[in-house]
């Protein structure tokens, strides 16, 4: 399970909306303890993909700086990106390029309905769906 503070949850949705029609991305910071993770803050990272409507590639120096920022305050819980027109699930490209085992890959899907936030942990071989909750505090 991955839980979000309300501010962190709203931040990734707002980031996705601002970026539409392009994919946006960032680093999730907080605490991880085994299968349980809590996202307490997020750090936006520039998407430098040449096809940003359908792909994301974190700008390397910005990603490095973001990880440094996050590690000063806690753990790298994982990464987030958006699917401006869906789908809710990770794409084949997401699976092909995933290379942070034991970390959460969160997708903000906009599509036509209300934003959907899903999370999958990369095992090193596949994505495992994990529950997403928003803390009440």
């Amino acid at each position, binding site marked *: 399970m991955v839980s979000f503070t309300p501010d962190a949850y709203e931040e990734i949705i707002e980031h996705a909306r601002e970026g539409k029609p392009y994919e946006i991305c960032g680093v999730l910071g907080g605490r991880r303890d085994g299968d349980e993770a809590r996202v307490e803050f997020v750090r936006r990272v520039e998407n430098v993909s040449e096809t940003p409507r359908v*792909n994301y590639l*974190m700008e390397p*120096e910005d990603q490095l700086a973001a990880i440094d920022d996050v590690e000063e305050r806690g753990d790298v819980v994982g*990464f987030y990106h958006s699917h401006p027109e869906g789908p809710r699930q990770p794409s084949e490209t997401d699976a092909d390029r995933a*290379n942070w085992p034991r970390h959460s890959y969160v997708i903000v899907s906009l599509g036509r309905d209300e934003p959907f936030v899903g999370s999958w942990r990369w095992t090193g071989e596949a994505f495992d769906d994990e529950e997403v909750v928003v803390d009440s505090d």
Partner: protein
Amino acid sequence: MPTVRIPAVLSETGGSRNVEVDGDTVLAAVHAYTEEYGSELEDNVLGNGEVKEYINVYVNGKDVRDIDGVDTQVGDGDEIRIIPAASGG
């Protein structure tokens, strides 16, 4: 000696690691790391003698692709940092 700094995802011990190794280039340092700790890091980071596409290697914060790649010179006090890129569709 240079220092190799890697995140937990690249460490066979499951924890992040910051260790000093021998070597006067990035390639030599990775080889030295492999001799000490096993081949997992090298297998994850290098392919055909180059840094793999979705892996980023920095020396003192500068991307080695903008310097001399795996032949980038390193020395005492230099930090080699290896970070998997985050990307997808």
